[in-house]
Every structure is written in structure tokens, then in C-alpha cells.
């Protein structure tokens, strides 16, 4: 079986999952306590005006009718209108998703470039100071919640030292948002040759990225260390050593490549949970991301917005799993056969 047909198969397998998510989010949002019509009509609304708003929203219809309407809209690429902002949900998500992705990706890049070498070194020099450092970082990373490290970093680097800019979003007020190409401000301003904008955006990005990176460092470093230890104790490594292969080759080609599989799995998991769960970081740094948008929508029972959020997350996860599966088949020849 070739790579392409594996990928095609995975996409097809995702279709029922996506449909299930559509059904479940639809039902769950309807099961939430609170009536959006009553909320938007305000405190002084009469029953008549509430009923009118309800008819506008379509929530007076029976559930199956609402569901069919929702499906029709979805098929046309319409995620509905957000009642709280008055904007189409799709536009809102497209505006905010890049902000979240920029934050998550830069945080992951940072944590991977620290965690993987740290884990590898900790395994190779077991019980040395590197190993102790790894243990410390892992424990600290898991035990400190992101809102705490975030606030601590803001306090030290903005309030005390003044090195970092005010934690107020993606760009300070002095700069104009560059024309969107990728949606990532740093890259977009580089494309537009707005060097000072790029620098400013990067400075804004730094503290929240570090906050998130500290949190994601732990599982990755831990898994790298464990997978490396396992690979180092394996019989094929003994063969490689008995054949006199140089220690760098033994380490990189024989041990590390075999240790990569569980690390990639962990990476995928870490990526998925940080993307949805970095609400706290977004709140601390006033980052206009998708997580804070979803929380606000949920509070006011903004059905369309919540459904749109969950669905877009689901699609992202499916894509992410696809990437991970593809990476698997590239790393491990055994996966190709099992298909």
C-alpha cells in the first residue's frame, strides 16, 4: 500500500468522526442551561420580544428541524452568525485561529528544541547533572499552572525589569497590523518588510510562548528520556556497539530514530491539548485567540459560535492526526504494512 492510499483511507475514516462531532456539539449546546433569546433580549424584555428573538434565531423550531437547517448551512460553508459579536462565526474563527496557532506553534517549537536534546542527554548521561536538571524541569513544568508562570513572567520581565512589552495582545498600539498572508503576525510583517512591526510582534509573542513552552516541556522531555532509555537498552543497540559503530552513529541513527515514535505521539497529544487549552495563557496576555473566544461564547450560550469552535477544533485534530500518521509511516516501516 502506498503512502497516498493510506492518507486517503485516514481521511475517509475521519468522516464518521466528524459527523458524530457535529451531532454531539449540536445536542450539547442545546442541552446547556440558559436561553440565548432571553439573554439578548435583556433584563427588561417582555415575553413577546423574547419570543420574537427566538423566532429570529430559529430556536422555537423543534430540534430535528433546527438540526437539518444547521446541516444545510454547514454544507454551504456557513457556520452561522455569532449573536454576541454580530459577526459570521467563520470570520471570527478565521481571524482568531491564526493568533492561537501562532502562539501554540512557537511555544511548541521552543519546547521541542529544548526538551528533546534535554531528554536525550538525560538518557545518555543517566543520573548525571543533566538528568537531575531534566527531572527538575519536568517536575516544575507539570506542577506550575500556566496562569501562575504567566503572571510570574509578566511580573518579573514587564513590571520589575521592564524588558518585555505590556501583555496586551499581539501587537502594541504604535504599529499597524500588516496585510494578512499567513495570519501569523511576525511572518506577515517580515513579508511586508515592516521590520519594526515584526520585532514588536515577536516581543509580544515571547512571554506567552515561554509560558506555554514551560508547560509543554515536561511531557516531551519525559517521553524523550524514557524512549531513549528503552532504545539504549535494546539488543540492536548492543549489536551496533559490538560492531564498533561510532557513538554518535549509535546514538543518532540507531537509538534516537527508534526513540522518535513515542516522542511524535506525545507531540501530537501535547499539540492538541495546548491548542484548545491555552485559554488561561490567552487570558493572562490578552491574546485574541480562539480559546478565549470560545469561553466567552459559551458563557452567553452563543450556539453558533460554540458549535463553530468545536467543529473547527475537530477538523484541526483530524488534520493533526493525519500529519502524525504520515510521520509514523516515514519513521517506521512496520506501520506501512499494517496500514
Amino acid at each position: 500500500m502506498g503512502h497516498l492510499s493510506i492518507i486517503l483511507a485516514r481521511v475517509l475514516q475521519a468522516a464518521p468522526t466528524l459527523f458524530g462531532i457535529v451531532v454531539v456539539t449540536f445536542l450539547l449546546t442545546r442541552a446547556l442551561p440558559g436561553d440565548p433569546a432571553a439573554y439578548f433580549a435583556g433584563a427588561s424584555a417582555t415575553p413577546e420580544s423574547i419570543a420574537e428573538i427566538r423566532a429570529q434565531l430559529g430556536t422555537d423550531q423543534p430540534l430535528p428541524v433546527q438540526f437539518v437547517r444547521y446541516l444545510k448551512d454547514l454544507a454551504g460553508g456557513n457556520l452561522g452568525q455569532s449573536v454576541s459579536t454580530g459577526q459570521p462565526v467563520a470570520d471570527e474563527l478565521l481571524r482568531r485561529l491564526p493568533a492561537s496557532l501562532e502562539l501554540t506553534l512557537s511555544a511548541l517549537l521552543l519546547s521541542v528544541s529544548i526538551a528533546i536534546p534535554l531528554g536525550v542527554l538525560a538518557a545518555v548521561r543517566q543520573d548525571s547533572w543533566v538528568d537531575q536538571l531534566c527531572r527538575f524541569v519536568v517536575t516544575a513544568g507539570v506542577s506550575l499552572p500556566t496562569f501562575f508562570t504567566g503572571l510570574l513572567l509578566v511580573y518579573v520581565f514587564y513590571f520589575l525589569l521592564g524588558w518585555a512589552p505590556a501583555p496586551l495582545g499581539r501587537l502594541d498600539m504604535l504599529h499597524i497590523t500588516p496585510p494578512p498572508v499567513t495570519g501569523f503576525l511576525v511572518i506577515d510583517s517580515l513579508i511586508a518588510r515592516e521590520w519594526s512591526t515584526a520585532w514588536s510582534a515577536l516581543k509580544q509573542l515571547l512571554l506567552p510562548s515561554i509560558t506555554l513552552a514551560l508547560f509543554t516541556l515536561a511531557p516531551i522531555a519525559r517521553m524523550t528520556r524514557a524512549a531513549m532509555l528503552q532504545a539504549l537498552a535494546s539488543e540492536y543497540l548492543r549489536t551496533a556497539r559490538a560492531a564498533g559503530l561510532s557513538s554518535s552513529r549509535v546514538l543518532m541513527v540507531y537509538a534516537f530514530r527508534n526513540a522518535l515514535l513515542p516522542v511524535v505521539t506525545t507531540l501530537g497529544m501535547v499539540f492538541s491539548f495546548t491548542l484548545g487549552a491555552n485559554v488561561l495563557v490567552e487570558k493572562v496576555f490578552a491574546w485574541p485567540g480562539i480559546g478565549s473566544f470560545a469561553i466567552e461564547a459559551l458563557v452567553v450560550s452563543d450556539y453558533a459560535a460554540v458549535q463553530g469552535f468545536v467543529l473547527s477544533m475537530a477538523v484541526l485534530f483530524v488534520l493533526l492526526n493525519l500529519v502524525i500518521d504520515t510521520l509514523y509511516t516515514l519513521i517506521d516501516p512496520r506501520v506501512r504494512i499494517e496500514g
Partner: protein
Amino acid sequence: MSTHLHNQLHNPSLLAVRDLCVEFATRKGPVTAVRAVNLQVAKGETLGIVGESGSGKSVTSYAVMRILDRAGRIVSGGIEFGGMQLHGADEATMSDLRGREISMIFQNPRAALNPIRPVGKQIEDVLIRHAQATHDQAKAKAIEALEKVRIRDAAKRYHAYPFELSGGMCQRVVIAIALACRPQLLIADEPTTGLDVTTQKAVMELVRELTRSEGMSTLLITHDLGLAGEYCDRIVVMEKGEVVEQQDTKGLFTAPAHPYTRRLIRSTPHSAATIRDLLPDDLRTPLPPAVAVSEEPLLEVKDLVKVFEAPSSFIQRLRGRRESGYRAVDGISFSIARGESVGLVGESGCGKSTTSAMVMRLLDSSSGSIRFKGHELTAVSAAQFARTPQRRELQMVFQDPHESLNPRATAAQSIADPLRRLEGMTDGAAIRARVEELAAQVGLPLELLDRLPHQLSGGQKARVGIARAISTKPELLILDEPTAALDVSVQAVVLNLLADLKAQSGMSYLFVSHDLEVVRLLCDRVIVMRAGSIVEEGPTAQVLSNPQAEYTRELLSAIPRPAHLPGHGAQAALVVGAGAA
């Protein structure tokens, strides 16, 4: 290189180990694994190190290669190789020597190869490392190395991954890696353990031929005295970290000096006439009287088939295509009479374990019938079988005595498990009494009953497994290679225990094994399987002394059988052996 040769002229031994002591750091303090070992390997010589598990034979070879794991340490002694002192050499020197001057092949060849690197690349790595090839020629040289170990279609196999090759093929690749740089010494650490006898023969003969043609010395480390006897010039016997005897092969077999060597030779099934001959003199009791085999069949298997469906891919399923399955067991029929013990023999993949799993009702058959005491067992699915009364009468002893015990259950709890579940016993005191009775029956000291599996030795764990299987007084006991994981001296005791239990209770045995010598000692009748079918069946003595099928002859001739073994040899002992079992 010239000083190298010069040294060899003055010192005929290529490798000299002197007073070697190796310690391992454990939580309970240092443990000495190898104590004052002395041995020499001359140029072109094949030296065997023979011993049971824990004898320190592998540790000695790892110390020579200086690849002991982190906890291991050479405490004292010297290792001299071609005039160089290896015990004090730095890592850079050692890594230059390894693979180029001294190579090693290992047990479990599939695990010994990098699972995600094409085998050809793994050979290239060694060639390039030791400057035996440039990047441009590496591929051609790697293919040449594969051809040298007789891998067919070497150019194609170059790209294969270890999981795509059989165990024997993987061992050939490991040998190709080891011999790629034409080392002077090859260390083979249990190179054929876990391989089939015919594969073992092919691999050993390949090693012998390649090392002889290059004038290499070989250090063969094995638990199998027969194997060492057939392929080695000289044999060193190790016990508990010490060398107890060191002789040329003929002398060792004809005039063993040390009592441990004598015991080891005796426990090796080749030379035994009866099962009791395996035991040391002081343990030898008279053979139990043979159980009368009745005419009435206890188990009748007819046209039994097991097809494993090939896992079809998602796309294939969409297109409505299905590949035809793999017929692991292809329409076999046999029967076992009451009181009879039948050996089921064959190489890995022949379907013997699948057959025993279907008879045991652990696996559903695809078609055919299994009648046990007149009941049709296939009428009840494997998943439901535990609820039928036949479950108690059909029990099994598994291959790995360690893996088949719950690591969190004490010996007593493991033995009591079937009593609670199948016999419905609830009274704690009664269960304990029955467990103690069973322990006495299998010769397990009562004070061991409250230990967990990891606190028991291999032989003790085997006894727990047997006690558990016979706790419900089964009429048919399926023994799936019950001694394959045990040392020969322990195997001797367990086989005798099985023979005694059978004599006491009149059980029938279905003894699944790859070892014809063991089957010879224990079974009345033997069934030889190959590729899912029965190729030959008959009384043990007849099949082994006068095999009709070509395949049976091949199996028999592949068993390593040193010419110097005293007494009988398998063929001569057949009549007596079968009559006694």
C-alpha cells in the same frame, strides 16, 4: 599490523583471558558474576563455553568485547587479544577493534537488528565505519556480504527490514554484519537458541564454513552441550561464574573430570535410554509402571482447519476485495487414547501451537470436529468454553513458566485459581489443604507457596504451572513446550515429574514440542507436522528409528549429535525409550 602478526607468532593463543573477575552493582551490593576465569582461544580454533543460565558464560564474552552494561565492571584479571591488553584499553581503541578484529553474533537475531533500518544499510554502517568501503562501493559490498551468507536475491533483500525476514534470515544478516570486516575472532552468544533445528544446522554450518575459510577463531557460547560437542574443538564448562572443566571435546565426553560436567552430560537427552537416565544417580528412582493405554479414544480430531484471514486494508474492503486467508492448520485428523501420551512435533509455523490452542479451546477452529469423551467441543465457542464441564477435564501447561503466571499472585493463589473458578471451592481451609496436596504432588516445597513468581526459580515456576494445570484432575493435559525455557538439569527433573504424574493419575498427554529427543523419552506416539498438515504419524520408536517421510528424516539429521557422546545416541536407544515412557 606487522607487530600484530609478530606477536601472534610468539603467542599462539589469539585470545587469552586470565583470572578474569566481573562484578555487577546491584541494590544489595556488588555481585560477582565471573570469578577467576582463565581461557585461551588459539588461532583458527573453535572453543565452546557451555553452562546453564547464571553460569557467567555470556558475561565473560561481554567482558572480552568490553560491552558490559553500566552496572557491570571488570574487577581484576587480564584480557589479551593478539598481543593487546583489552582490559585496560580505552573506548576509542575498543570501538576500532569491535567489528573489525572481534565480532559478535547474538541470540534472538530479530531483536539484534535495528528494526527500522534496511538490513543492507546496517551492513554498510559497519563497512564504512571500519574503512572497508567508501560510500560509493558500500552498497555493492553489502550485497556481496549478503550473498556470502547465502541470502538469495541479495540485491532485493538489501532493502528489506528485519520484520520482513524469517528468524534464520535475520541471523544470517547478523552474521554478515559480524563477518563483513573479516575479524580474527567471532564470538557467537547462543546463536541458534530459539531457531528451528534445521535452521540451526544451516546457520551453524554457515558459521563453521565461513570462519574456517578465513582462518578465524570462534568462541561459541551455548547451553546446549550437543551443539558444542558437534562444532567445537575444545570445550570450557562453566558453573556459577567459575570454569569447572576445560578439555578437548572428545576428552570431555569420554572422560569428564568434574561432577558438574558429568551431570550436564547426563541431563542432555541425546544419550539417555530412559527418562530416568537424565537424573543424577541419587535422585534416580525406579521407573513408574507404564500406564495401560486403552482402546477407547479420549480425543478425536477430524479434518481440523484454522484459517487466519489476511487483514484486508480499508481501501480493499471498499472495493469489496478480500485476500484469501492463511491456512495455519490444514485439515488434520488424529486421536489420543485414554492414558496415551502423544507428541506433536514440528518447526515454528507448522501449526502445532495453533492445533493445541484449538484443542484446548482457546481458539475457535474454522472447520472440522474435536470430540472429547464423545462431546463435540467445537459446538461451544472458545469464549464460552470456560462454562462447560469439559473445561476442568482439559488443561494446559504453558511454554514460558514465568510469563504464564500472574506476577502479582503467590504460588498458592495461582494453584488455587482453578479450584475456585472451576471446582467452585469456597472454603479457604479446604482450598489451602488441596493446594498443599498438589504442591507435594509436584515436589514444590510448602514454604515456597507464599512466594511471588519472581521469587521462584525457573524449575519451581514450572512446578507451579503444572500443579495449577492438574488441580482439577484433568483427563487430558496439553503440554506446550513445557521445558523449552528451562536449563537441561531442570528440564530433566520436570520431564521425570511429568512421567510420574502420568503414571499416578492415568492422564493423557498431548506434548507439543520442537525437540524430538524429549518427545522420544516421554511419548508413546508421535505426530510430525509441517505447514499445517501431518506428514507422518506412528509409534515413537518406529517414526524415529525408521522415518518414512523425507521431512522427518531431515528433522532427525538436523539434531546436533556429537560423535563422542557416550553410549547410545538417539537411534540406538529408541526401543527402550519408547517402551519405558
